[in-house]
């Protein structure tokens, strides 16, 4: 019923493990205690408050109520000085434990393992235990006439750390207080003209506090404060760096509060104002890595401007109700942001290298979690090699020294590199290899005669590389028409741009069969289903499944072939040689996004498009021969890949196809075949019941069989 009041403030929120309760503070005098559905947190409507307490008329709760995680008691402060501690069983707030303090309290912070910490308005800090021993003890005033704006507490190892910001005459100061060591540091925040911080949030990692400030200039700035600071210098000035600009296509988000979700995402609550339009309140999630607005939700009923986040759920007031929204932050990767992620069936490609983290000891962690560390302070674009991999070799400790190799003779150079590659696996070895390839490619570019074909092939085959690690490799390979390398790259790189995929396809289709026959290409994807000998029409014997026998069906096939020669002739023989087929299979296997591939496909020359379609048609017919519609062999295309590419190609080239006379027959055959397949499957579904019944009857008859057989055991 309290939520029915229009004028309420949502002052604080404490959360108790593990039943997911929320302590809601409504107005200045009331407290309600409710809980939420774990699964359906939005529908608070059918929830009842579990507890409700109020202070006496005239008293005012002056700071957010928190829960002591160790004792499961609640701690409130009213009238600045009066501390109240109670638990669930207490009904009347007036009768619970009371302690009157000697100074005004700014906030009480509760830490999961550290117990509550009380921050006074004068900047003094006490743990609750110490305070309760002598409530009237003297509290020092540290900040004289500065005013505390925001505070937060963390656990660093075993000791509580308190951070708070103050303001005085437009200047902002940051205080870090380590309780156990009784050390206090004061910093001044770098000033910014015409703009001042509105809201703060902070997190701690690796002994570094990252303070994020939301400025009135609609930007989020990042400030790094190291915890290990022993020198008692006089006032240090903290410099800040821009993390995020809250503007998207002309409209600006006037943020009021914000929270950090993970390394790459922040959520901001505020009002979005486009020029000339009425501003509307909304909740937004931003990707700081790519500086993009990930998603937003309009909140037409208005909010209190406060946003909390706990266990992947947002809490805020929307109109008169407390709204809880679940969110999920996907791993932030460019592939996820702009295109298709590579099919999860190919497990051989798993690591992505992030250049920003190179040389950081955390690389192992980021590999495991597949997350990039964008919130990290150092954006190291210059790569320094201090890893032990390169140490044994003289003069290779810096990247440019690899470039020195460019003048060395090819064999000497390759020998050195081979030695390097045989060295123990290091966490950042991947990145080293990327550097090596980049250096090699640069040399190729400057010296057109130089092309270490075998060496490149070896690296690509043995290492889990990605396109973004060596972007020029495929371009050079395309230029050199090194189809084998391209094939391996297509098979192993998870992040090839569609443009390059298309370029590969075009090269593969245009290259002559005669040339290909001289070239070594990996044929494992085609060897199992293609008839290498063109004049050898004999059907290959394969493992026949589900009782289907090739010999029995032979008669039926014979008649079918004579009757429908025109139908089968197109799908029966492979229109391309095995080498070309293997290369095309590599293209079919690579990841792509339709939107980005389609414009390129439109440029494919008509003859090549028809050839490609003919090959896809051949694959489709081959697939349909088997009951399980899969082609045998390693890395052979799946029926879904074939169908997707066929549709894509037809979409891109349909007008051209319709005009071409030789494509016409192909299209009509394709149409007939697809129609026949659809009909076949619908018939199969129809007779399934009858088949089952027949099977049952058959087995009933079988069970009565009795036979005398001759058995010889040797």
């Amino acid at each position, binding site marked *: 019923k309290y939520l029915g009041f229009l004028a309420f403030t949502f002052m604080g929120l404490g959360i108790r493990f593990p039943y997911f309760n929320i302590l809601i503070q409504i107005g200045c005098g009331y407290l309600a205690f409710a809980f939420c559905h774990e699964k359906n947190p939005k529908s608070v409507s059918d929830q009842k408050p579990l507890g409700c307490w109020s202070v006496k008329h005239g008293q005012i709760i002056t700071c957010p109520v928190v829960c002591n995680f160790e004792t499961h008691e609640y701690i409130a402060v009213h009238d600045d000085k009066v501390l109240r501690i109670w638990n669930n069983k207490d009904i009347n707030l007036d009768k619970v434990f009371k302690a009157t303090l000697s100074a005004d309290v700014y906030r009480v912070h509760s830490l999961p393992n550290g117990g509550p910490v009380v921050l006074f308005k004068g900047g003094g800090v006490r743990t609750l235990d110490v305070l309760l021993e002598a409530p009237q003890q003297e509290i020092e005033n540290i900040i004289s006439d500065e005013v505390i704006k925001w505070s937060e507490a963390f656990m660093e190892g075993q000791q509580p750390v308190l951070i708070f910001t103050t303001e005085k005459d437009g200047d902002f100061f940051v205080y870090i207080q380590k309780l156990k060591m009784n050390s206090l540091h004061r910093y001044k925040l770098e000033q910014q003209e015409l703009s001042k911080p509105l809201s703060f949030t902070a997190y701690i990692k690796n002994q570094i506090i990252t303070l994020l400030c939301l400025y009135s200039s609609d930007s989020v700035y990042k400030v790094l404060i190291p915890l290990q600071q022993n020198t008692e210098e006089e006032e240090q000035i903290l410099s800040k760096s821009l993390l995020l600009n809250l503007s998207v296509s002309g409209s600006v988000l006037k943020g009021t509060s914000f929270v950090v979700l993970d390394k790459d995402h922040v959520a901001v609550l505020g009002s979005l104002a486009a020029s000339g339009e009425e501003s509307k309140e909304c909740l937004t999630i931003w990707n700081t890595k790519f500086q993009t607005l990930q998603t937003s939700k309009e909140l037409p009923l208005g909010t209190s401007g406060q946003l909390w986040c706990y266990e992947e759920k947002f809490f805020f007031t929307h109109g008169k109700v407390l709204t809880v929204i679940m969110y999920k932050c996907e791993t932030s990767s460019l592939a996820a942001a702009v295109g298709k992620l590579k099919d999860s069936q190919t497990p051989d490609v798993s690591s992505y290298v992030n250049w920003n983290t190179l040389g950081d000891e955390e690389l192992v962690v980021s590999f495991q979690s597949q997350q990039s560390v964008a919130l990290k302070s150092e954006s190291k674009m210059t790569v320094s090699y201090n890893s032990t991999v390169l140490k044994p070799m003289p003069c290779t400790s810096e990247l440019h020294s690899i470039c020195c190799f460019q003048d060395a003779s090819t064999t000497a150079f390759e020998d050195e590199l081979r030695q390097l590659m045989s060295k123990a696996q290091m966490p950042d070895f991947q990145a080293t290899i990327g550097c090596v390839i980049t250096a090699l490619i640069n040399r190729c570019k400057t010296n057109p005669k130089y092309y270490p074909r075998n060496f490149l092939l070896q690296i690509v085959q043995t290492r889990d590389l990605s396109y973004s690690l060596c972007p020029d490799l495929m371009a050079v390979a395309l230029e050199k028409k090194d189809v084998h390398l391209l094939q391996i790259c297509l098979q192993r790189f998870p992040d090839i741009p569609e443009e390059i995929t298309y370029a590969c396809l075009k090269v593969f289709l245009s290259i002559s069969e005669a040339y290909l026959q001289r070239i070594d290409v990996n044929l494992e994807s085609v060897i199992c289903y293609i008839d290498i000998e063109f004049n050898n029409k004999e059907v290959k014997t394969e493992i026949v499944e589900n009782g289907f026998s090739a010999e029995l069906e032979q008669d039926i096939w014979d008649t079918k072939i004579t009757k429908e020669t025109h139908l089968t002739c197109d799908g029966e023989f492979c229109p391309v040689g095995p080498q070309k087929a293997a290369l095309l299979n590599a293209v079919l296997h690579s990841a792509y996004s339709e939107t980005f591939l389609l414009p390129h496909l439109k440029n494919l020359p008509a003859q090549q498009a028809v050839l490609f379609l003919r090959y896809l048609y051949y694959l489709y017919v081959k697939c349909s021969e088997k009951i399980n519609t899969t082609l045998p062999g390693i890395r052979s295309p799946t029926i879904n890949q074939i169908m997707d590419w066929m549709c894509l190609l037809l979409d891109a080239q349909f007008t051209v196809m319709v005009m071409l006379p030789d494509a016409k027959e192909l299209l009509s055959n394709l149409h007939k075949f697809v129609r026949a397949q659809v009909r076949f*499957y619908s018939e199969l579904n129809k007779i399934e019941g009858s088949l089952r019944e027949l*099977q049952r009857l058959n*087995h009933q008859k079988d069970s009565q069989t009795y036979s*005398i*057989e001759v*058995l010889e055991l040797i």
Partner: protein
Amino acid sequence: VYNFAANYFQEKVIPGHETRSVEALCWAAGDRLFGAGLSGDITEYDLALLCVARSVDGCGGPIWSMAANSSGTQLAIGCEDGSVKLFQVVPGGIQFERNLDRRKGRILCLSWHPSDTHIAAGSIDFLRVFDVCSGNSQPERIMVNYHVLKVRRECIVWSIAFLSSGTVITSDSFGRVQFWDWQRGTLMESHTVSTSAVLSLAVSEKEDSIIVGTSTGATYQFQLLPVKMGSLEKRWVRTKPFQHHTHDVRAVAHSSTALISGGLDAQLVIRPLMEKMQKKGYDAALRKFTFPHRRLVSCARKARLLLFQFSQHLELWRLGSTDETGKDGEVLPLCRMPEHLVQLKSKGPEHIYCSCVSPCGSWVAYSTASRFHLYRVQYEGDGISIKKVPKVPKLLLPAYQLQFSSDSGSLFVASARGSVHVLQLLEPGGCKHLHTFRPPSGSPEAVYLLASSADGHWLAAVGGDWAIHIYDLKCFKHHCTVPTYSCAVTALAIHPVTNNLVIAYSDQQLFEFSIPEKQYTAWSRMVQNCGLHRVWLERDSPITHITFNPKNPSHILLHDIYMFCVLDKSLPLPDNSALLMNQSTLKQLPETARQRQLHAFKICKKFQPLLFADLLDENCLVMVERPIMDIKTQLPLPIQQKKFGT
């Protein structure tokens, strides 16, 4: 009762009863086994005598569920009338303690909180959580069909589990597995795993993993996993799906290393959890049990008859014959068809424990829990007459195994407490009790396997304690005991010529024990020294029958469900590098090359699943197959699932 330590051997079988369907089973007070069912009775089973020890009426109509508390001192039953009743497990029985607060609606499932203070009960459309002390439920009921109010279909809570954290897990007919906070009466998580009902549910001891079984035959594992690497917050995640059954999965269990499921398709599947396995090997293999681990067919060699034992009737068949011969693999034309001679229906609701036909074919005997029957069968030309032998001696029933002597002159009856009765069969149709053998040191367990020698001199008997006693039939005294081996005996037989006792154990070991010399034979010691072939030891179904070829004393004929084997003692044992199943290889080799490849195990896997195999005469074997499809056609149709197209 399967013994996991004895290589999953189906060690004890308690035959059923037509009116006592078993809906729930539980272990309580150590290793006491209780069952309850739609007859409304709670039954305690005697695991030594393999019969119902005592039975108490639950007084609440049909019982749908039963659960024992963690200490095994109390039983809770869920009844048709909606009541949950508590019984105290006391020495020598159970005692009614109290009723918990009753509401309408049958209680289909029950689960105790590990602290024994609360009981969760699932019913139709709701679940309840009772305080064991007060007997009340607070909140009174938690509706489970809350989110599907628009569909006016009743939601049956088929299975329930209570975790120590206070979470109640339910599985229901809407195909959902749901996690409840019972104190608040709120749903915490809901996972829809199937379009049809989720029938069964079991939680691992650590409460970090559950298995559910559905009516489509699929089972799913859920695991409590951190939402992120290293995170403290954990969620239930559906991890592994398995499809080992074709029909309803009625029961599931979660051991520390395996998921166990039992279905309406008569299969028990043990699926080891690979992550709990140290290495890939024998223990990590999937086990499937479809057939009982004992012999249900007996053969009258001389009369060429087969007696089939069904749960409530016997069938006697005469085998067909041929007068032609042929080459390996040929099917010969029959000159006489097999003939179904007689069907003997057991009276009353009890299922048959054991049955046997005498070698001459003129005697048939069977036993149920309370009755023993002996019939005299006479063949007059094509006709057959069957007469019940009146006034059979009053024996301690049930009989666990019956065995006629090879001259059909006497019948051995395996009985409780290690005893074996010897009955003398009298012409034209009578019998009298001759003697009762008892193990010298006594034994509480029933005898479950018997073997008699062809010369009528020896009788070997195995009891539930796995001790093999050999009795002298000539002077009716205990002859000796075979050295104990720590595994269950699955089959044994006495060689007709040498009087060597051949024993097969559930760990697939084979022993040969000379009865006259009271010691293991040289060959047996040689086998133990060399060790059997790895592939032989890794078979997962036990040898269920052993027989011999009198014309070739070095041959031992054995079979399990999947193979038939002639063990030729005159040939060398294969070592692990040799191919164990080498018959098809041998057949392709020329006569001269074969000699070097021969080894003792001549295995034929042509007949599967093999229920019975026996030697009729020198060159005639009878094999009884029981096709799985034949069993499946007798089952109700499984839930339809589309197979073709998309």
